[in-house]
């Protein structure tokens, strides 16, 4: 698999924020905010896979939804192909919608149960009025084959397929308009291991053949390690470390990255982790700890961590890190 080239990034996210209001009182005034995504910056190059990894509630999915315009960002900028997405109107927005697609986690709820597979895959073509009707149908058949489905199943409904096959349908839909970027929101976490492997292989084949870039959102380090070029680790709405895959896995720098990788079970019973029954809990985005939000769980935490928030900064080895101690 080719790693991405060093050309200009296709997508640049700068200080993205998504806050949800907390309302209270007689007049339902806004009294605070859940800072689900709180200043996230990264870039994505053509044809590469960048993974957003982190535990539930860290804001990785919210980031993905905001990128697609499914949630309204509270702040920050998204640049696509040199243009700022928030300025997009009319045709520009339409073309952005065409070039950035999404694959969802849940293969059940992501396909309309009342539509036939043909209609589901053709929807992007219909909406953007690509080609004639016949051309669209031909494209549907082609896509189905591409993702490993039999085109003669086009008239079936989603519930007639297994989870893995549904995920293939979702992928075909995302591919229909030949996008530059596909946001994959936990695309395999609902699947059994054997099926998960099929889908991961398919995704990696597609990237190789079509040069599409993936923003891969996942909590599963194994999957991330398998598929990514670069990995961004998120914790409570912020990226704490972002680096090449090998750097992250071989040499995790942020204490949280370390904890995350160290928590993944091994596959070697002769070399077990001695997991501690410790009880430190993940704080929630509603009441984030002050300073470095990881300090409540961090073995290295000092007063500085409690008081000031470390910024994400580029280090000599090419990784970006947000930690006072590393």
């Amino acid at each position, binding site marked *: 698999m080719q790693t991405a080239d060093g050309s200009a990034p296709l997508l640049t996210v700068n200080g993205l924020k998504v806050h949800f209001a907390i309302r*209270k*009182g*007689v007049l339902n005034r806004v009294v605070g905010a859940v800072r689900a995504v709180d200043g996230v910056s990264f870039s994505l190059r053509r044809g590469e896979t960048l993974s957003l990894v982190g535990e539930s509630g860290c804001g990785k999915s919210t980031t993905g939804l905001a990128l697609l315009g499914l949630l309204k960002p509270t702040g920050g900028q998204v640049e696509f192909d040199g243009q700022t997405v928030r300025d997009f109107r009319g045709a520009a927005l339409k073309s952005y919608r065409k070039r950035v697609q999404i694959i969802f986690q849940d293969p059940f709820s992501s396909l309309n149960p009342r539509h036939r597979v043909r209609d589901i895959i053709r929807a992007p073509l219909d909406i953007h009025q690509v080609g004639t009707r016949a051309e669209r149908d031909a494209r549907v058949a082609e896509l189905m084959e591409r993702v490993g489905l039999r085109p003669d199943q086009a008239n079936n409904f989603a519930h007639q397929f297994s989870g893995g096959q549904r995920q293939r349908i979702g992928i075909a839909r995302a591919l229909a308009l030949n996008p530059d970027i596909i946001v994959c929101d936990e695309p395999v976490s609902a699947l059994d291991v054997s099926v998960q492997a099929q889908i991961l292989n398919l995704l990696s084949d597609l990237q190789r053949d079509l040069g599409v870039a993936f923003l891969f959102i996942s909590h599963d380090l194994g999957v991330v390690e398998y598929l990514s070029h670069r990995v961004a680790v998120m914790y409570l709405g912020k990226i704490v470390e972002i680096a090449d895959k090998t750097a992250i896995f071989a040499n995790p720098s942020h204490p949280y990255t370390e904890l995350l990788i160290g928590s993944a079970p091994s596959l070697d019973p002769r070399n077990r982790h001695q997991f501690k029954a410790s009880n430190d809990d993940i704080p929630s985005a509603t009441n984030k700890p002050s300073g470095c939000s990881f300090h409540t769980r961090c073995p290295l935490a000092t007063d500085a961590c409690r008081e000031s928030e470390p910024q994400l900064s580029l280090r000599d080895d090419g990784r970006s890190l947000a930690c006072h101690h590393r």
Partner: protein
Amino acid sequence: MIAYIIRRLLLLIPLAIGMVVVTFALLLIIPGDPASVLLGQEATPEAIATLRANLGLDDPWYIRLWDYFAALAHGDMGQSIFQSQPVSTIIAGRLAATIELAVVSLVLATILGLVLGVISAIWQGSIIDTATMLLAQLGVSMPVYWLGLLLMLLFAVNLGWLPAIGRGEPLLDALAAALSGRPEVLIKSLSHIALPAFALAVNSAAIISRLVRTSMLEILREDFIRTAYAKGLRRPRVIVRHALRNALLPVLSVIGLRFGALLGGAVLTETIFAWPGLGQLTISAISQRDLPLIQGIVLTFAIIFALVNLIVDLLYAAVDPRIRLG
């Protein structure tokens, strides 16, 4: 919590204004005029005109509406055209009777509904279940007034067990009388309310029993029921403490809605059983085009309905710790 209650009560204001305006508009275009009803067939056109002017019916609609709201702001619902009494006095006199009827039949409906619903859920698929649910189906399929007449025919006329019509002492007074050694007063009051309350309750009992059944069946499939069994709890305890308590939650919100339906159903029931409540008053007010009275009744219904729903929501929050009102 207090803020929530205040906010809900404030929301009542636009609702009430809206309802007054809608009712006003309806009454404005309904043909027929209280002046001529008041004066009877023999009235001369001049007399009708004089009365119209005296009643302010000739003023433009916006002045009449404004006057109404201005008076309402001072807590004055106006004077009934026909009963030469303040609307508030008339309604206050009738309200207690209607609420008594609605509450008694709601209690009746809830008890019946719960017992039948739980029984048929526990013995799902058995003859008891089928019979209960068929009964429930019949209950919702019967026109209330027909049921009322049949009940009256049977219990009051043919069997002579219960009085056909009218109301005894108000139940609370009757209760007090019974406590002070005059049980016959209470018996009389109960005997009067039995038929109308039952006729009114059948529909709601049927609806509640079906809901309880569905909700019970759903709860009985929940994981925590399995947990309760896994703890070694006996079946009756699981059903009462774990299943029923949770199954009551959806029932609670329906009871609020049913209360509204009961108030509506009271119109027919009260007419049949000569129950001196708001329902009867509504019919006569409409048939006399007693505008201020109709407005007052509508307003009263709105307030009761809103209050009942507020109480239900508060109860809901009290019973279900997951609900936070804010």
